[in-house]
């Protein structure tokens, strides 16, 4: 801390698929993330958006914040709905049109996991993007299975007693062509991963860490900063898994203690010292495991 940050303008090509005037909260990282995902994906796409913050952002009928068609399935059925839509487009000769799911973590880690697993097993040709704000934020911030250890939510007022589910590992075990983490805190990395996923076929998954200003207790102008802290502290490592076994870690080092990340959010208020230490240990172990997988993969391939 105390280091001066250099501001630089990102030069990202932009295809305006998400329009201004949408219904997101001021400073929302969900909307910013969607803007860049959809921009990289381009206009030849159909979005599947289950009930979630993104469904609110997409707008109320007969208006739409998206310049591409949207189908809203039930909360638990995104990957199945996307599969049906994909097959119908294929039957109509529209194999090049992308089907992209824009779902939250509740609709992905929890209620939608069964059909996501099935779509992954069938290697359906869809891009599934999980906007992971680590809880049911659209209903006022209750815990999901993506909520991290010790975080306070509306349904875990004393802090969550169990750890966050590791969705990337679950999906990597399905040996899908591509699974990666990304965040709007590192936009060029996010855009590159969308481009990479776009060029592949079959089931592709992006898990985007989306700090929720209201749900996490973060000031309106600090969402991006918190996303960067998550990556720098190793709480949310940026990495890619291809075909279930080729691991790439996108940052060489963790550069901060977990404490820096925790102190920036109200959901971790009143953490006790031993809890902070426990979280640091969890992150260290997770990081070491990722490094091991990256190296093990190198040995296998070389």
């Amino acid at each position, binding site marked *: 801390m105390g280091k001066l940050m250099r501001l630089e303008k990102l030069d990202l090509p932009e295809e305006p698929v998400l329009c201004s005037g949408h219904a997101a909260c001021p400073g929302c990282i969900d909307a910013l993330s969607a803007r860049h995902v959809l921009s990289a994906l381009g206009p030849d796409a159909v979005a599947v958006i289950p009930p979630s913050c993104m469904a609110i952002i997409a707008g*109320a*009928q007969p208006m739409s914040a998206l310049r591409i068609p949207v189908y809203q399935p*039930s909360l638990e059925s995104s990957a199945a709905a996307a599969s*049906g839509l994909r097959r119908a487009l294929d*039957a109509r000769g529209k194999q090049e049109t992308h089907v992209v799911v824009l779902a939250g973590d509740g609709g992905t880690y929890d209620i939608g996991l069964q059909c996501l697993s099935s779509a992954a097993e069938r290697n359906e040709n869809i891009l599934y993007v999980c906007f992971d704000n680590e809880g049911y934020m659209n209903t006022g911030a209750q815990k999901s299975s993506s909520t991290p250890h010790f975080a306070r939510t509306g349904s875990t007022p004393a802090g969550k007693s169990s750890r966050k589910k590791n969705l990337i590992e679950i999906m990597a075990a399905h040996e899908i062509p591509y699974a990666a983490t990304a965040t709007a805190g590192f936009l060029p990395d996010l855009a590159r991963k969308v481009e990479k996923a776009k060029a592949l076929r079959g089931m592709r998954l992006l898990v985007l860490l989306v700090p929720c200003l209201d749900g996490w207790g973060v000031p309106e102008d600090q969402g991006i900063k918190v996303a960067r802290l998550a990556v720098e502290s190793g709480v949310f490592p940026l990495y890619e898994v291809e075909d279930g076994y080729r691991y790439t870690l996108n940052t060489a080092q963790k550069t901060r203690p977990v404490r820096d990340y925790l102190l920036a959010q109200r959901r971790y208020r009143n953490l006790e010292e031993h809890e902070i230490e426990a979280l640091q240990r969890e992150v260290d172990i997770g990081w070491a495991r990722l490094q091991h997988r990256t190296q093990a993969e190198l040995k296998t391939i070389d």
Partner: protein
Amino acid sequence: MNAGAKRVLLTGNHAVAWGARLSRPKVIPVYPITPQTPVLELLTEFHAAGELDAEMLTPESEHSVMAACIPASLTGVRVFTATASQGLMLMHELLHYASGARAPIVMANVNRTIASPWAFWPDQTDSLAQRDTGWIQLYVESAQEALDSVIQAFRIAERVFLPVMINLDAFYVSHALEPVELPAQALIDAYLPPYAPQHFIDPERGESWGNVVSQDLYCRHRQDIGAAMDRVPAIAAQADQEWQRATGRGWGVIERYRCEDAELVIASLGSMCGTAREAVDALRADGHAAGLVKVRLFRPLPLAALRTALGGVRDVLVLDRNFSPGAGGVLHQELRAALYGMPSPPRVHGLLAGVGGVNVPPQKIVDLALAARNREPAAEPVWAN
């Protein structure tokens, strides 16, 4: 027989699969469940042999099957699936979703007991419990009727943009082998042209479905669904008449069997009607003026046709192979409501007959009919096992 038609031995399930194949669906998501599984197996065999040009999906559950059916249909292609019992129960939420989306999906449901406890017998509680989901429901009695009804169902569904469920009883219809006439593909292609809706999901069009709506939009949407349902009896009758002209076989939205001057009419759904037909013949042979009304179209209930068929009849005996605890037989409730307010309405006797697959032989129906003539209808459910 029609030119190019073939006469073959088929089970009800295989007749359904043939009906689907002849209708040329483009997407078929499907999940196996007893006693529907042979439908799935024959469709996948057709597909593997290159005889069925469709995208087949085999997801992890019936819930995902219906979840895939809806946007596939909204993308502008013909969609077919089949299920039974627990599978239909698991789909329940998405049955509403499908009719709300105005998706003209056609689904065969093999009527089987619903758990718990676990059982596999013919019982129509599964589909009758879906009567408020906005699906058109047909009940069929034979393999031939199953095949014909699948094809007719696409005609009806695509005319009103509502999904159709064709119900056939477990084993009595699903597994019984019967001679079935397979119409020529050319006849079906003339009867059922390719599905080409005005609205469909496509990036070049930008139309969306499912986002949040206001109270007013929601209410008007429900009224639109109601208006579409109201058109169904006439459209289903027309689809059946045109089918009759093309194939020589018509089934009606209801069928009236030996109802001329009948003082007592038996009313039922599905395979029970085959047994009741024999009971009617026996009653007539003994000089009793008995008839049968088979309710083929159950949703929407064809009120005008039923009032015409049952007006002036002294006793109507409703046989329900289903049970709604606390209410009784579903067809009984529906018919009482349908006939309410008529001048000198018939006495409507409801009997729970064959619930859970309990056998109901013709003589049993004869006995029940004779007993009904001599008593007032009971307000409470009456068990006839």
